[in-house]
């Protein structure tokens, strides 16, 4: 008798757990569908059952949409539904809102992405040419590049990095998914002026480095030294 009842109880508990999981999945599905930009899963917590297993939910949801016309994708710290990549050709439409990036802006974007955190003078070192003020502004206006902090070196130059919108726009799960990153690292081409056999840094769009200070709230990146030199010129 007892054993039987136990089994029944376990059965009921399992059923309930299944129902709760299914409901959580629907809630997460609805929240992710309703959002345009990637959503931090923690933001869904208030709407899920207590102690919901977020990882398991995302896993199940990702699988559910694996072969659909819409996929659940990871973008940095968040998740979002996006149309399937293999339908790209079919769905392709010329973007009208954004002006295409100029050659130099795109080059700077790539340098920021692969070398971040990077200062303006380091960008200039790679390109061998002064950076016109507009180029970085365009990238920041597009929402792809941000000021991360200030390097703890003389002059305290502003450091730049990419944003989560950058990941989202170019369909990258993480900054380490940049195309060709490993080859570049292997070839020692991300190492500044270090000889190739030194430890090669990886791009990092997250936390500040040890040699970076956070920006103050009222620090908008005006760089006294560079402003002065520009005024002089």
């Amino acid at each position, binding site marked *: 008798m007892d054993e039987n009842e136990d089994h029944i109880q376990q059965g009921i508990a399992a059923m309930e757990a299944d129902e709760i999981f299914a409901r959580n999945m629907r809630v997460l599905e609805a929240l992710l*569908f309703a959002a345009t930009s990637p959503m931090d899963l923690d933001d869904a917590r208030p709407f899920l059952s207590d102690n919901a297993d977020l990882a398991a939910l995302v896993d199940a949801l990702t699988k559910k949409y694996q072969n659909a016309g819409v996929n659940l994708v990871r973008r940095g710290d968040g998740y979002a539904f996006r*149309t399937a990549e293999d339908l*790209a050709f079919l769905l392709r439409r010329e973007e009208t809102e954004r002006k295409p990036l100029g050659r130099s802006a795109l080059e700077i974007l790539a340098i920021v992405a*692969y070398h971040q955190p990077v200062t303006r003078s380091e960008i200039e070192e790679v390109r*061998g040419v002064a950076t016109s003020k507009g180029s970085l502004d365009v990238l920041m206006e597009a929402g792809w590049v941000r000021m991360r902090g200030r390097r703890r070196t003389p002059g305290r130059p502003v450091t730049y990095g990419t944003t989560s919108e950058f990941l989202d726009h170019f369909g990258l799960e993480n900054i380490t998914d*940049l*195309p*060709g990153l490993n080859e*570049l690292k292997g070839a020692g081409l991300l190492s500044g002026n270090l000889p190739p056999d030194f430890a090669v840094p990886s791009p990092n769009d997250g936390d500040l480095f040890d040699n970076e200070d956070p920006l103050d709230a009222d620090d908008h990146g005006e760089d006294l030294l560079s402003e002065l030199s520009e005024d002089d010129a």
Partner: protein
Amino acid sequence: MANSGHQDDFIEDKHPPSAERGGVMYVDVDGYEGPLDLLLDLARKQKVDLVNISVLALAEQYLSFIDTLRERRIEIAADYLVMAAWLTFLKSRLMVPQDDDGDEPSGEEMAALLQFRLKRLEAMRDAAAKLINRPQLGKEIFASGSPEQVVTTKISEWEATYYDLLQAYSVQRERQIPAEYAPTTRTVWSLQDAEDILRRLIGEGADWVPLHVCLSEYLELPEERATALASSFTASLEMVRQGHIELRQNQAFAPLMMRRKKSDG
């Protein structure tokens, strides 16, 4: 995603047309983004991998290009001249046999550095091309087109206590009571009034008279009793001080007797 065709388009299409006519290279220096860009373009014309490039040949091409520009009196930005000076130095290092003092970079080291910088710039251009050839959001990949907004409704919850309510009622009801009050004038005897009355009552007689008998006419009016007693008693003390009257009391709580002072003439 990136195929080399795309990439070349992207890199090359904004470059100025450069062509060789009659052995002379015509290049618009304004079309280059700095000396490194120019060097990279020249290096590509060697049609070998950057690893196998002849740095010496590259330096010579660069210097002769700058010379051409100078001959044609084209103004050249300082960046290009700095690079020209550096390449001249590099060239001399490469051509003159090394003295091994180790302090100065050798020609080979300088050449390797130049190669590194060219390779890195090229790598970044390739990376930029690969990036821009990825399917982009809003172009090939799409987010939800009609996201459902979270609607936040603000509900004002008014706060008022029961006491507030009752007070508000009482206060305004009272405020509206018609102001038809008749001022109740309280009679108060001033000391001067009391003195005048005492003088009159005592008259010219010099007999002892009890004070309350003098005042009996007033003491019967309840609203005047207190003030009549208090004021006339105080006035009488003053009058004693001034020597107009005399006061006498046989024992505590006995009637207070008074009379005109004899000498007061």
